[in-house]
Protein backbone atom coordinates (compact mmCIF):
# COMPACT_ATOMS: atom_id res chain seq x y z
CA UNK A 1 0.00 0.00 0.00
CA UNK A 2 2.62 2.49 -1.11
CA UNK A 3 0.06 5.12 -1.94
CA UNK A 4 -1.39 4.94 1.54
CA UNK A 5 2.08 5.50 2.99
CA UNK A 6 2.67 8.43 0.70
CA UNK A 7 -0.59 10.03 1.71
CA UNK A 8 0.42 9.80 5.32
CA UNK A 9 3.49 11.80 4.36
CA UNK A 10 1.33 14.14 2.33
CA UNK A 11 -0.45 15.54 5.34
CA UNK A 12 2.80 16.13 7.26
CA UNK A 13 4.58 17.71 4.33
CA UNK A 14 5.14 21.19 5.68
CA UNK A 15 7.24 19.83 8.55
CA UNK A 16 9.08 17.19 6.54
CA UNK A 17 9.73 19.57 3.65
CA UNK A 18 11.41 22.00 6.00
CA UNK A 19 13.58 19.22 7.42
CA UNK A 20 14.61 17.93 4.01
CA UNK A 21 15.62 21.36 2.92
CA UNK A 22 18.26 22.34 5.44
CA UNK A 23 21.44 20.65 4.22
CA UNK A 24 24.89 21.79 5.48
CA UNK A 25 26.41 24.76 3.65
CA UNK A 26 29.27 24.01 1.24
CA UNK A 27 31.71 26.11 3.25
CA UNK A 28 31.09 24.05 6.37
CA UNK A 29 31.61 20.83 4.45
CA UNK A 30 34.83 22.10 2.94
CA UNK A 31 36.27 23.09 6.32
CA UNK A 32 35.34 19.75 7.90
CA UNK A 33 36.84 17.81 5.00
CA UNK A 34 40.05 19.86 5.02
CA UNK A 35 40.64 18.92 8.62
CA UNK A 36 41.18 15.23 7.88
CA UNK A 37 43.54 15.82 4.92
CA UNK A 38 46.51 17.83 6.29
CA UNK A 39 49.32 17.99 3.71
CA UNK A 40 52.18 15.58 4.40
CA UNK A 41 55.31 16.42 2.42
CA UNK A 42 56.56 12.88 1.82
CA UNK A 43 53.81 10.83 0.26
CA UNK A 44 54.72 8.08 -2.18
CA UNK A 45 52.33 7.09 -4.94
CA UNK A 46 51.83 3.94 -2.92
CA UNK A 47 50.14 6.01 -0.24
CA UNK A 48 47.73 7.61 -2.62
CA UNK A 49 45.52 4.52 -2.53
CA UNK A 50 44.88 5.11 1.15
CA UNK A 51 43.84 8.71 0.49
CA UNK A 52 40.34 9.81 -0.44
CA UNK A 53 39.39 10.28 -4.07
CA UNK A 54 40.31 8.30 -7.20
CA UNK A 55 43.93 7.32 -7.71
CA UNK A 56 45.36 9.25 -10.66
CA UNK A 57 47.83 7.92 -13.26
CA UNK A 58 50.30 10.42 -11.85
CA UNK A 59 50.16 11.22 -8.15
CA UNK A 60 49.70 14.93 -8.76
CA UNK A 61 49.87 16.89 -5.49
CA UNK A 62 47.43 19.79 -5.47
CA UNK A 63 48.45 20.40 -1.85
CA UNK A 64 52.03 21.03 -2.93
CA UNK A 65 51.30 23.00 -6.11
CA UNK A 66 48.56 25.15 -4.63
CA UNK A 67 49.04 24.84 -0.89
CA UNK A 68 52.83 25.01 -0.59
CA UNK A 69 53.86 26.70 -3.84
CA UNK A 70 50.86 29.01 -3.80
CA UNK A 71 50.10 28.61 -7.50
CA UNK A 72 46.80 30.26 -8.44
CA UNK A 73 44.20 27.82 -9.80
CA UNK A 74 43.95 29.69 -13.07
CA UNK A 75 47.63 29.16 -13.77
CA UNK A 76 46.69 25.68 -14.93
CA UNK A 77 42.93 25.82 -15.32
CA UNK A 78 43.32 28.81 -17.55
CA UNK A 79 40.00 29.04 -19.38
CA UNK A 80 37.85 28.99 -16.26
CA UNK A 81 37.27 32.73 -16.34
CA UNK A 82 36.32 32.94 -20.01
CA UNK A 83 34.69 29.63 -20.81
CA UNK A 84 32.14 27.25 -19.41
CA UNK A 85 34.97 24.72 -19.16
CA UNK A 86 37.88 25.39 -16.77
CA UNK A 87 40.16 23.32 -18.98
CA UNK A 88 42.92 21.07 -17.71
CA UNK A 89 46.57 22.03 -18.16
CA UNK A 90 48.18 20.98 -21.40
CA UNK A 91 51.18 18.71 -21.14
CA UNK A 92 53.21 21.62 -22.46
CA UNK A 93 52.28 23.83 -19.52
CA UNK A 94 53.24 21.05 -17.11
CA UNK A 95 56.57 20.70 -18.85
CA UNK A 96 56.97 24.46 -18.75
CA UNK A 97 58.04 24.05 -15.12
CA UNK A 98 58.99 20.41 -14.93
CA UNK A 99 61.54 20.71 -17.68
CA UNK A 100 63.63 22.26 -14.90
CA UNK A 101 61.93 21.12 -11.69
CA UNK A 102 62.74 17.46 -11.20
CA UNK A 103 61.41 17.22 -7.65
CA UNK A 104 63.28 17.39 -4.37
CA UNK A 105 62.02 14.19 -2.83
CA UNK A 106 62.49 10.76 -4.35
CA UNK A 107 58.76 10.03 -4.18
CA UNK A 108 58.24 13.23 -6.24
CA UNK A 109 60.99 12.40 -8.72
CA UNK A 110 59.19 9.20 -9.65
CA UNK A 111 55.98 10.97 -10.48
CA UNK A 112 57.65 13.80 -12.43
CA UNK A 113 59.52 11.21 -14.45
CA UNK A 114 56.19 9.71 -15.50
CA UNK A 115 55.21 13.14 -16.80
CA UNK A 116 58.43 13.63 -18.73
CA UNK A 117 58.23 10.16 -20.27
CA UNK A 118 54.68 10.82 -21.38
CA UNK A 119 55.75 14.14 -22.89
CA UNK A 120 58.62 12.58 -24.79
CA UNK A 121 56.28 9.84 -26.03
CA UNK A 122 53.82 12.60 -27.04
CA UNK A 123 51.26 10.65 -25.03
CA UNK A 124 48.64 12.72 -23.20
CA UNK A 125 47.95 11.55 -19.64
CA UNK A 126 44.47 10.24 -19.01
CA UNK A 127 43.43 11.78 -15.71
CA UNK A 128 40.51 10.30 -13.83
CA UNK A 129 37.67 12.77 -13.62
CA UNK A 130 36.66 13.72 -10.08
CA UNK A 131 33.99 16.39 -10.56
CA UNK A 132 31.45 16.07 -13.32
CA UNK A 133 28.05 17.72 -13.40
CA UNK A 134 25.20 15.63 -14.79
CA UNK A 135 25.15 16.03 -18.54
CA UNK A 136 21.71 17.57 -18.67
CA UNK A 137 22.88 20.48 -16.50
CA UNK A 138 25.03 23.20 -18.04
CA UNK A 139 27.43 24.86 -15.61
CA UNK A 140 29.11 27.99 -16.99
CA UNK A 141 32.29 28.29 -14.90
CA UNK A 142 33.04 31.80 -16.14
CA UNK A 143 29.79 33.21 -14.82
CA UNK A 144 30.60 31.89 -11.34
CA UNK A 145 34.17 33.13 -11.38
CA UNK A 146 32.92 36.48 -12.63
CA UNK A 147 30.42 36.70 -9.79
CA UNK A 148 32.43 35.14 -6.95
CA UNK A 149 35.99 36.10 -7.87
CA UNK A 150 38.96 33.99 -8.96
CA UNK A 151 39.29 32.16 -5.64
CA UNK A 152 35.70 30.96 -5.49
CA UNK A 153 36.74 27.50 -6.67
CA UNK A 154 36.69 25.98 -3.22
CA UNK A 155 33.08 26.83 -2.55
CA UNK A 156 32.32 23.82 -4.75
CA UNK A 157 35.62 21.93 -5.08
CA UNK A 158 36.58 22.23 -1.41
CA UNK A 159 39.97 23.29 -0.09
CA UNK A 160 42.02 21.69 -2.84
CA UNK A 161 45.11 23.44 -1.44
CA UNK A 162 45.11 20.85 1.33
CA UNK A 163 44.35 17.75 -0.69
CA UNK A 164 47.27 15.49 -1.64
CA UNK A 165 44.78 13.73 -3.89
CA UNK A 166 41.64 15.53 -5.05
CA UNK A 167 38.36 14.08 -3.94
CA UNK A 168 34.75 15.13 -4.10
CA UNK A 169 33.88 17.35 -1.13
CA UNK A 170 30.40 18.30 -2.22
CA UNK A 171 27.97 16.20 -4.18
CA UNK A 172 27.88 18.71 -7.01
CA UNK A 173 25.45 16.41 -8.80
CA UNK A 174 22.77 17.15 -6.26
CA UNK A 175 20.66 19.91 -7.65
CA UNK A 176 19.97 20.83 -4.04
CA UNK A 177 23.65 21.77 -3.67
CA UNK A 178 23.37 24.34 -6.47
CA UNK A 179 20.01 25.60 -5.27
CA UNK A 180 21.16 26.20 -1.70
CA UNK A 181 23.76 28.64 -2.95
CA UNK A 182 21.46 30.29 -5.47
CA UNK A 183 18.87 30.79 -2.75
CA UNK A 184 21.32 32.20 -0.23
CA UNK A 185 22.60 34.68 -2.80
CA UNK A 186 19.13 35.40 -4.19
CA UNK A 187 20.18 34.30 -7.70
CA UNK A 188 18.00 33.25 -10.59
CA UNK A 189 16.43 29.83 -10.01
CA UNK A 190 14.97 29.57 -13.50
CA UNK A 191 15.21 25.97 -14.74
CA UNK A 192 16.41 26.88 -18.22
CA UNK A 193 19.33 28.74 -16.72
CA UNK A 194 21.05 25.35 -16.50
CA UNK A 195 18.78 22.78 -18.15
CA UNK A 196 18.53 23.06 -21.96
Amino acid at each position, binding site marked *: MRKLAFLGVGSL*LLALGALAIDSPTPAAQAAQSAADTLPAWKLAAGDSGSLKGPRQPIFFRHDIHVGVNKMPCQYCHSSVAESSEPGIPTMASCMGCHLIIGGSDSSHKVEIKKLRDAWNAKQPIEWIRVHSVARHAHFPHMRHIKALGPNACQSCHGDVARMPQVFKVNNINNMGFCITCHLERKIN*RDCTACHY
Partner: protein
Amino acid sequence: MARTVPGVLAAFEHIDAACDAIQALRAQGRTDFTVYAAAHNHELEEAVGLPVSPVRLYTLFGGLTGVCAGVGMTYWMSLDWPLLVGGKPIATIPPYVVFMFELMVLLGSLSTVVGIVLLSLAKPTTGLAYDPRFSDDQIGIFVPCAGAEAASLERMFKDAGSVGVRHAA
Protein backbone atom coordinates in the same frame (compact mmCIF):
# COMPACT_ATOMS: atom_id res chain seq x y z
CA MET B 1 -5.83 -16.65 27.00
CA ALA B 2 -6.94 -14.11 29.52
CA ARG B 3 -8.61 -15.41 32.62
CA THR B 4 -12.33 -15.87 32.18
CA VAL B 5 -14.78 -13.56 33.94
CA PRO B 6 -17.20 -15.57 36.10
CA GLY B 7 -20.85 -14.99 35.18
CA VAL B 8 -24.00 -16.18 33.53
CA LEU B 9 -24.38 -16.56 29.76
CA ALA B 10 -27.87 -16.92 28.37
CA ALA B 11 -28.79 -17.71 24.77
CA PHE B 12 -32.03 -16.58 23.09
CA GLU B 13 -33.60 -17.47 19.78
CA HIS B 14 -36.47 -15.04 20.09
CA ILE B 15 -35.92 -11.33 19.88
CA ASP B 16 -38.77 -10.38 22.23
CA ALA B 17 -37.55 -12.77 24.84
CA ALA B 18 -34.04 -11.31 24.68
CA CYS B 19 -35.38 -7.79 24.95
CA ASP B 20 -37.51 -8.69 27.97
CA ALA B 21 -34.46 -10.16 29.66
CA ILE B 22 -32.44 -7.04 28.98
CA GLN B 23 -35.25 -4.86 30.30
CA ALA B 24 -35.31 -6.97 33.46
CA LEU B 25 -31.53 -6.62 33.90
CA ARG B 26 -31.74 -2.89 33.53
CA ALA B 27 -34.63 -2.85 35.99
CA GLN B 28 -32.20 -4.37 38.46
CA GLY B 29 -29.97 -1.40 37.74
CA ARG B 30 -27.39 -3.51 35.95
CA THR B 31 -25.28 -1.95 33.19
CA ASP B 32 -22.34 -4.33 33.17
CA PHE B 33 -24.00 -6.99 31.01
CA THR B 34 -22.99 -7.69 27.42
CA VAL B 35 -25.41 -8.52 24.60
CA TYR B 36 -24.20 -10.58 21.63
CA ALA B 37 -25.94 -10.52 18.24
CA ALA B 38 -25.06 -11.60 14.70
CA ALA B 39 -26.56 -8.50 13.16
CA HIS B 40 -27.33 -4.94 14.06
CA ASN B 41 -30.85 -4.87 15.47
CA HIS B 42 -32.84 -1.84 16.57
CA GLU B 43 -35.01 -3.58 19.12
CA LEU B 44 -31.92 -4.80 20.92
CA GLU B 45 -30.34 -1.37 20.65
CA GLU B 46 -33.41 0.23 22.21
CA ALA B 47 -33.54 -2.44 24.88
CA VAL B 48 -29.91 -1.87 25.84
CA GLY B 49 -30.48 1.85 25.49
CA LEU B 50 -26.92 3.10 25.17
CA PRO B 51 -26.33 6.69 23.93
CA VAL B 52 -25.37 7.38 20.27
CA SER B 53 -21.76 6.49 19.46
CA PRO B 54 -19.29 9.43 19.57
CA VAL B 55 -17.40 8.02 16.54
CA ARG B 56 -18.66 10.91 14.39
CA LEU B 57 -16.33 13.26 16.27
CA TYR B 58 -13.39 11.30 14.87
CA THR B 59 -14.84 11.68 11.41
CA LEU B 60 -15.26 15.41 11.88
CA PHE B 61 -11.74 15.85 13.21
CA GLY B 62 -10.19 13.82 10.40
CA GLY B 63 -12.16 15.68 7.78
CA LEU B 64 -11.11 19.09 9.06
CA THR B 65 -7.46 18.05 9.30
CA GLY B 66 -7.72 16.89 5.67
CA VAL B 67 -9.04 20.21 4.43
CA CYS B 68 -6.32 22.14 6.26
CA ALA B 69 -3.62 19.80 4.92
CA GLY B 70 -5.05 20.37 1.44
CA VAL B 71 -4.85 24.13 1.74
CA GLY B 72 -1.43 24.15 3.37
CA MET B 73 0.25 21.67 1.06
CA THR B 74 -0.93 23.19 -2.20
CA TYR B 75 -0.25 26.80 -1.24
CA TRP B 76 3.08 26.31 0.43
CA MET B 77 4.42 24.09 -2.32
CA SER B 78 3.33 26.47 -5.09
CA LEU B 79 4.95 29.43 -3.39
CA ASP B 80 8.07 27.57 -2.26
CA TRP B 81 9.33 27.53 -5.86
CA PRO B 82 7.12 29.86 -7.89
CA LEU B 83 6.78 28.59 -11.45
CA LEU B 84 4.49 30.23 -13.96
CA VAL B 85 2.31 27.97 -16.08
CA GLY B 86 -0.12 28.99 -18.77
CA GLY B 87 -0.22 32.59 -17.58
CA LYS B 88 -2.22 31.56 -14.52
CA PRO B 89 -1.58 32.98 -11.04
CA ILE B 90 1.16 31.07 -9.20
CA ALA B 91 -1.11 30.05 -6.32
CA THR B 92 -4.81 29.92 -7.02
CA ILE B 93 -7.81 28.42 -5.25
CA PRO B 94 -9.99 26.69 -7.86
CA PRO B 95 -7.68 23.82 -8.82
CA TYR B 96 -6.59 23.36 -5.22
CA VAL B 97 -10.14 22.67 -4.04
CA VAL B 98 -9.73 19.18 -5.47
CA PHE B 99 -6.92 18.47 -3.01
CA MET B 100 -8.77 19.93 -0.06
CA PHE B 101 -11.70 17.67 -0.87
CA GLU B 102 -9.73 14.50 -1.51
CA LEU B 103 -7.67 14.87 1.65
CA MET B 104 -10.82 15.59 3.65
CA VAL B 105 -12.43 12.34 2.51
CA LEU B 106 -9.22 10.39 2.98
CA LEU B 107 -8.30 11.53 6.47
CA GLY B 108 -11.99 11.62 7.44
CA SER B 109 -12.54 7.96 6.66
CA LEU B 110 -9.22 6.81 8.07
CA SER B 111 -9.81 8.54 11.39
CA THR B 112 -13.31 7.05 11.47
CA VAL B 113 -11.80 3.58 11.34
CA VAL B 114 -9.38 4.57 14.08
CA GLY B 115 -12.49 5.70 15.97
CA ILE B 116 -14.15 2.28 15.82
CA VAL B 117 -11.03 0.55 17.01
CA LEU B 118 -10.34 2.87 19.93
CA LEU B 119 -13.96 3.04 21.09
CA SER B 120 -14.41 -0.73 20.91
CA LEU B 121 -11.18 -1.26 22.83
CA ALA B 122 -12.58 1.03 25.53
CA LYS B 123 -14.88 -1.86 26.51
CA PRO B 124 -12.77 -5.04 26.12
CA THR B 125 -14.47 -8.39 25.41
CA THR B 126 -11.61 -10.64 26.45
CA GLY B 127 -12.50 -13.25 29.02
CA LEU B 128 -16.24 -12.77 28.58
CA ALA B 129 -17.99 -16.04 27.93
CA TYR B 130 -19.08 -16.36 24.28
CA ASP B 131 -20.77 -18.91 22.09
CA PRO B 132 -20.20 -19.40 18.33
CA ARG B 133 -23.94 -19.49 17.72
CA PHE B 134 -24.14 -15.80 18.63
CA SER B 135 -22.57 -15.01 15.27
CA ASP B 136 -25.09 -17.33 13.68
CA ASP B 137 -28.70 -17.15 14.80
CA GLN B 138 -28.79 -16.71 18.54
CA ILE B 139 -28.78 -13.66 20.76
CA GLY B 140 -26.58 -13.91 23.84
CA ILE B 141 -26.56 -12.06 27.12
CA PHE B 142 -23.65 -12.32 29.51
CA VAL B 143 -23.79 -10.97 33.03
CA PRO B 144 -20.68 -11.06 35.21
CA CYS B 145 -21.69 -12.35 38.61
CA ALA B 146 -21.24 -15.28 40.99
CA GLY B 147 -22.94 -17.52 43.53
CA ALA B 148 -26.53 -16.97 44.50
CA GLU B 149 -26.93 -14.01 42.21
CA ALA B 150 -26.04 -16.26 39.33
CA ALA B 151 -28.78 -18.69 40.21
CA SER B 152 -31.41 -15.93 40.39
CA LEU B 153 -30.30 -14.54 37.05
CA GLU B 154 -30.52 -17.97 35.48
CA ARG B 155 -34.08 -18.27 36.72
CA MET B 156 -34.88 -14.82 35.37
CA PHE B 157 -33.44 -15.70 31.93
CA LYS B 158 -35.32 -19.01 31.83
CA ASP B 159 -38.56 -17.18 32.57
CA ALA B 160 -37.84 -14.64 29.88
CA GLY B 161 -37.55 -17.55 27.40
CA SER B 162 -33.87 -18.32 27.14
CA VAL B 163 -33.09 -21.50 25.14
CA GLY B 164 -30.06 -22.19 27.28
CA VAL B 165 -28.13 -20.75 30.19
CA ARG B 166 -24.51 -21.43 31.02
CA HIS B 167 -22.39 -20.55 34.02
CA ALA B 168 -18.90 -19.31 33.35
CA ALA B 169 -16.36 -19.55 36.15
